[in-house]
C-alpha cells in the first residue's frame, strides 16, 4: 500500500490556485522531497496531507485513509512539523517534549530510542526555554516532538529553512536514520542541494508538479550538453554571455555561469568570443546537470 497518494489535488485561495491538479504516489518507507521555491504551493500541499486543509478539488490518502473523511484516525499517525517554529517558546525543552508525548498518549521513555540520536544533542539544554534555543536546536526539538509518538509518516515543511549549514547536514543525517526505522518521510525544501538526499523528488512550481523521479534520473533527464564558464569578473561574464546569440540558455550558478550551446558550436568558440569581448581569462568545462539546472529548464518549458 502506498504511504501517501494524491489524486488531482487542487486548492484555490480566491483567484489564486496554490495547488494545481497535483497527483503523486509515495511508497512506504520512502524519503520523498518536494523541491520548489517559496510560494510554489508546498505548504498548502503539506497542510492538505496533514489533514489541516480540505482541498478544493481532488483527494489525498495516507495509508489508504482519506485526509478529509478519516482525519481523526489519521491524526494518530502523523508527525507534522510546520514551516514556522511552532513549539511553546515559554516552555522548556523538556516541558515541550513532555507535553507532546502526553497529548499523543505516550511517554518520552516509551519512544526514547526513536528520538535518542536527535534528542541527545539538545538534552544538555533541557531546562532551557525553547524560545532561547538556536535555530538548529529548535529544529531538533521540533523534530523530536513530531517523532515522540512514533508516527507512521512524518510531514516536514521546510525543516531546514533558516538553519545553518552544519545543522542542515546533521538534520538530513537524522532523516536518513529515521528512514532506516521504516518511517515514511515527506519533506519540502527550497534548497536544491538537499534534493540529492531524497529517494525521490517532485519539482514543484506555481502549484504544479513539473516532474517526479529519483534525483539521479531527474538529472539525467537533462539531455543537452551543459557547460560551466568561469571568469573572475562574473557580472561582466554574465552580461557578455547573455548578449551572445549563440548561448541557448545562460544562468548564473555560484562561481560560474551555466550555458547550453546550439548544435555545431564548440566550447572553444565561446572562449574566443569572450577573448575579443575583453574577457581573456575565461575557462569553459562540460559538466553534468544538477537539479537546479533541470528545474530552471523545466520552468522555462512551462512558461
Amino acid at each position, binding site marked *: 500500500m502506498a504511504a501517501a497518494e494524491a489524486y488531482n489535488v487542487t486548492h484555490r485561495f480566491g483567484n489564486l490556485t496554490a495547488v494545481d491538479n497535483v497527483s503523486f504516489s509515495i511508497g512506504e518507507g520512502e524519503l520523498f522531497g518536494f523541491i520548489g521555491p517559496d510560494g510554489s504551493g508546498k505548504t498548502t500541499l503539506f497542510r492538505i496531507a496533514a489533514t489541516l486543509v480540505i482541498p478544493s478539488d481532488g483527494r489525498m490518502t495516507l495509508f489508504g485513509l482519506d485526509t478529509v473523511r478519516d*482525519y481523526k484516525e489519521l491524526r494518530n499517525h502523523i508527525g507534522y512539523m510546520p514551516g514556522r517554529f511552532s513549539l*511553546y517558546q515559554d*516552555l522548556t525543552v523538556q516541558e515541550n517534549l513532555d507535553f507532546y508525548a502526553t*497529548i499523543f498518549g505516550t511517554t518520552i521513555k516509551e519512544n526514547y530510542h526513536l528520538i535518542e540520536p536527535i534528542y541527545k544533542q539538545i538534552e544538555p539544554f533541557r531546562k532551557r526555554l525553547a524560545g532561547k534555543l538556536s535555530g538548529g536546536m529548535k529544529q531538533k526539538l521540533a523534530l523530536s516532538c513530531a517523532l515522540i509518538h512514533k508516527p507512521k509518516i512524518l510531514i516536514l515543511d521546510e525543516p531546514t529553512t533558516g538553519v545553518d549549514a552544519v545543522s542542515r547536514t546533521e538534520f538530513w543525517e537524522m532523516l536518513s536514520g529515521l528512514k532506516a526505522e521504516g518511517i515514511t518521510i515527506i519533506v519540502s525544501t527550497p534548497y536544491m542541494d538537499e534534493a540529492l538526499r531524497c529517494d525521490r523528488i517532485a519539482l514543484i512550481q506555481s502549484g504544479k508538479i513539473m516532474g517526479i523521479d529519483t534525483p539521479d534520473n531527474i538529472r539525467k533527464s537533462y539531455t543537452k550538453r551543459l557547460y560551466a564558464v568561469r571568469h573572475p569578473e562574473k557580472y561582466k561574464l554574465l552580461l557578455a554571455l547573455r548578449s551572445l546569440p549563440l548561448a541557448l540558455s545562460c544562468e548564473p550558478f555560484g562561481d560560474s555561469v551555466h550555458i547550453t550551446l546550439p548544435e555545431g558550436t564548440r566550447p572553444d568558440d565561446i572562449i574566443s568570443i569572450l577573448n575579443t569581448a575583453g574577457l581573456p581569462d575565461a575557462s569553459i568545462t562540460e559538466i553534468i546537470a544538477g537539479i537546479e539546472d533541470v528545474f530552471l529548464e523545466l520552468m522555462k518549458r512551462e512558461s
Partner: protein
Amino acid sequence: MKRFMAFVRKEFLHIFRDYRTLIILFGLPAAQILIFGYAVRTDLTNASIAVLDNAHDEVSSELIMKLEASEFFTLSHNIKSYSEIDEVFRQGKIKAVIVFPEELSARLTRDGNVTVSIIADGSEPNTASLVTGYTTAILNDWSATLTNKVTESLPVINTEVKMYFNPNLESQFMFVPGVITLILILVCALMTSVTIVREKEFGTMEVLLVSPLKPWQIVIGKVAPYFFLSLVNVIVILIMAWFVFGLPVMGSISLLMAECMLYILLGLAIGILVSTSVQKMENAIFISFLTLMLPSLLLSGFIFPIENMPKGYDYFSMLLPPRWFVEIIRSVMIKGSGFSFVWKETLILVLMTVFFIVLSARKFKVRLGEGGK
C-alpha cells in the same frame, strides 16, 4: 483525561511564566478596587453648607455657631425660604442645607424634642452621608450639654435627613459589584480569546490540531485555568472589599459564588467565540475591548444608572450580560436578596451562556483557515 490534564498544566505554566498575564490577572483587580475605593473620598473638611433659619432664636444661633466652628463645615449661605433650596443645590457648591424649624427654642423647652431637617446633595452619595452624619453628631453633642429643667431629661434634637437628586442614597460601595463584573469579563473573555488566538498566531494550533486531542479538550483545557483563576479573583476582590472598605456580603456567599461561576462561564464562552473569528492577538484584544469592556463599563449601570439612559440605550443594554450580572450581584451583595429575587436575571444569563457555548462550538474549526468544519 491524562492528555487533558497535561494540557491544563501547560496552560498554567504559560500563565505563570508571563508576568504580563499575571499583572492583568491579579494586579488589575487590586488596583481597580483601590482606585475606585479611594477615589471616593472618605474624609470631610470645610464642606459648604447653607442654613435656612426659620427660628431666629438663641438656640438656632448657637447651633449655627457650633456648626461653623467645626472644621468640617463652612457656612456659605443663609437662605430665606424653601424655594431657594433648589437653586443653591443646582449651583452645586452646597453639599447640604440645614433647616431649623420655627420656634426652635420654645418647642425644645416645651416638648423636649424637636426635628431639624438636613437636606443633602445625593448626587455625591459619599459626601452626603458624611455631611448628615457629622451634622447629626454636632447637634446631638450640643443637646447633650443641656438638661431640661422641666422634664428632668435630655432634650432631643431629631434629625430628618432628605436626599436631593438621589433620594435612596445608593451605597458608595456600588463600585464593588461593578469592578467584579468588569474584571470577570476582562479576565474571562479577553484573556481566553487572546490565549487561544496566541496558539494560532505562533503556529502551535496547527500542531495541536494534528494531534489526537479532541477539539473540546483543546478548548476546555485552555479555558479551565482561567475559570479557576477568575474564581480566585472574585474571592480576592470580596476579601479586599471587606477588609479595606468594610463592605461585607449581605446575602448568601454560596449563591454569590454560583452566580459568579455562571458569569465566568458566559465570559469564557464569549472569549472562545471571539477566538474562533480572529487570527491575530491584536484583533482579539480590540474586539474584546470594544464589544465587552466598553459596554460593560458604560451601559451596564455600573457607572451611569440605567434609568437615566435614553430609551434606545436602555433596550440595547438588555442584550449585554453585564447589565444582568451587575443587577444580580448588587442584590445579593448589598441588599442581601435570595435566589427568589434574582432568578429572572439568572435565567437570562443561563440562556445567554448556552447560546454562546453552542455558537462557539459550531464555529470552532478542526482545520486551518477557511477549511470549514
